[in-house]
C-alpha cells in the first residue's frame, strides 16, 4: 500500500499504458486504434516527466541569489532549508527528461498524422475503417486472378 502511495505517478503511467494497449488491440476501428496508440505513447511521457521531478524542485531556470525572484522564492520555502542550501540554492527538477519527452511528443505527433492519413487512404480504397471488413475484402483480393493486365 505504501508503495502504491509513494509511487502513484508510476502506477498512473502503467495504468494509462495498459488502457492504451487494451484499446489498441480490442477494437477493429482504425481511428480508435490510433487513439489507443496515442494513449500508449503519452504514458511514457508521464513516466519520463515523473523521473525528472525532484521533490520540492522548481523549473530549471537559473535563479541568482540576490534577484527579486530568489527573495520571493525564499519566502515560500522552508526557512531551515534556505539556511542549509542558501537563498539561491534552489533545488531544480531534472530538465533533461522534459527535453527528451518533447522530442518524443514530436515523434508521436508525426506517427499519429502518418497513421491517420493511411487510415484516410484505407477508407478511400476499401470504403471502411473496420479491420474485419477490410480483411474480408483483402481475402477476395488475395484469391484474385493471377497475371492480370
Amino acid at each position: 500500500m505504501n508503495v502504491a502511495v509513494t509511487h502513484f505517478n508510476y502506477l498512473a503511467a502503467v495504468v494509462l499504458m495498459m488502457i492504451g494497449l487494451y484499446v489498441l488491440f480490442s477494437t477493429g476501428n482504425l481511428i480508435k486504434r490510433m487513439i489507443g496508440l496515442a494513449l500508449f505513447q503519452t504514458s511514457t511521457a508521464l513516466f519520463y516527466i515523473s523521473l525528472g521531478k525532484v521533490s520540492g524542485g522548481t523549473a530549471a531556470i537559473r535563479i541568482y541569489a540576490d534577484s527579486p525572484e530568489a527573495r520571493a522564492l525564499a519566502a515560500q520555502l522552508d526557512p531551515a532549508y534556505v539556511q542549509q542550501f542558501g537563498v539561491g540554492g534552489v533545488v531544480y527538477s531534472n530538465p533533461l527528461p522534459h527535453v527528451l519527452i518533447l522530442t518524443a511528443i514530436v515523434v508521436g505527433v508525426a506517427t499519429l498524422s502518418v497513421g491517420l492519413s493511411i487510415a484516410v487512404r484505407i477508407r478511400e480504397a476499401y470504403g471502411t475503417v473496420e479491420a474485419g471488413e477490410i480483411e474480408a475484402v483483402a481475402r477476395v483480393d488475395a484469391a484474385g486472378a493471377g497475371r492480370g493486365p
Partner: protein
Amino acid sequence: MILFEALYVAPPALTAQAPILVIAGPLIGACAAALSPGGRTAWMVSVLTAAFALWMAVAVAGEVAREGVIDYALGGFAPPMGIALRIDALGATMALLVASIGVMGALYSGHALESEVKAEKRTLFQSGYLLCLAGFLGLVFTGDAFNAFVFLEVSSIGTYALVAVGEARDRRALPAAFSYLIFGTVGATLYVLGVGFLYAATGTLNMVDMAMRLATLGDNSAVQAGLAFVVAGLGVKAAMFPLHGWLPGAYAGAPSLVSMFLAATATKAAIYLIIRFVFDVFPEGEFGEVFLSWILAPLAAAAVIICSVQAIFENEVRRILAFSSVAQVGFILLGVSLATPAGLSAGMFYLVAHALMKGALFMAVGAFAVSVRARTVEDFSGIAREAPWSAAAFGVGAASLAGVPLTMGFLAKWSLVSAALQAGEIWIVAVLAIGSLLTLIYVGRMLEVMFFRAPVRGAERAREAPVGVLAPLFVLAGLSLWFGVDATLPASMANASASALVGAAP
C-alpha cells in the same frame, strides 16, 4: 577493415566532418527531393545524395580502420553531456552496407518506380526514401541511446509511408502499412520506456558512459527490466520471432524497391542496435548470458524452423521471400547468441550476405513487375524464357539463399556452422541444417516453376526489364557470387566488427 586503412577518398577537412555528413547529406537531400519539380529531378537528387552518403561512409570507414573508434561530438558539446556519434568497426560496416544498398536502390528506382508508384507520388517517394536512408545511417552511427530512438523513428515513419505507396499495385499495402505502423510504434515506445529505465538507473544517455556506470551497479532489477524493454522494442523492428507479424504483409504490399530496401537495411539496423545494447552497453554477467542462451537462441531457432515452414506453404512469391527474411533473421541471431567472437563474426557475415541476396531477389521480382503483374508462384511459370537476365539474377540470389557452394550464402552458413561447432552447441548446428533444408524446398519450388515450366498459355508475356533496372540488380547478384569466391572484404569487416564488440580476434 584492413583493406580500408590505406584509403583516403576525401580531403582531410571533409573526412573530419564525414560522420555527420553521412547523416546530414540524405536529410538535406530529402528536402531537396521534396521540392524538386518532377520525378526525374527527384530521382537524380536521390542518386547523387545516396552516392554522397556512400562516399562519406567510405571516408569514415578509412578513418575507423586507421584509428579504431571515432568520437564525434555534435555541435562541439563534449560527451557525455552532448550528443555524440561513436563509430567503431561494427558501425562503419553497417554504414557501408546501408549506404551501398541505398545507392543501388536509388539507381534502381529510376525505372522500377514507373510500374509501381503513381507519377504524382514519385518526388515525395524519393524524399521518403532519403529520409529512411538518413535514419538508418544515423542509427548505426549514434552513441546516444535516446538519439537512436529519434533516428529509429525518422526511418520508421519514412518506411510506413513508403510501404503505403505500394497501393498503386496492390491495395493490400494500405492495411499492411497501418499494422506496420501500429507494431512499429508500440516497439519504439517500448524502446523509449527501456531507455527511461536505464536512464533512471544511470543518469546518462551516452552509451559508453551508460556501460561504465552499469558495470558498477551490479544486479539491478530496473536495469534488467530496461534491457528487456529495449530488446522487445527493437525486436519488433528487427522482425525477431514472434514479433514479426507486421513483416509479411508489409513486404508483400510495398513497391519492390521498398521491400528490397527494408529487407536489406531496416531489420538489419534494428539487429545492429540489439547487438550494440546486449554486448556493448549491458555489462557482462549471468543475466546477459541467460538472456542470450535461453531467450534469444530459442526464439531464433523457432524463427528458422517455423517461418521456413510457413514460407514453404505460402503461395505468393513476395510473401515467400518475406517469411524467408524472418527465418534468415533467425540465422543471424543464432550466430549472435553464441556470444563468441566467431559466432558474432559469422552473424555479421550472414547479415551482409542476406542483405545482398534478399536485395537481389526483391529487385528481380521488381524487374519482372515492370512488365507483368505476377503474384503467385504459378504466375511466374516459365518467366525465365521471357526475361532471362532478370531470372538469372533471381537464380543467383536464390542459390545464395539456399546456400549453394560458390555463393556468399554458402560461406555464411559454413561460418555459422563452424562457429556453433567451436562453441560446442550441437543443437544449433542441427537447427541450421534443418533450416537450410527447408530453405532448399521453397527456393527449389520457385526456381523449378520459373526455369523449367512452360509459360501459362494465354497469359500476358513478360519482357526483359530496362538496363537501369538490370544494372543494380546485377551488381547485387554479382556481389553474392564474387564474395562467394573471394570473401576477404566482408570477412575482414565481420571479424573487425566482432572484435570491436567482444575485444578478441576470432
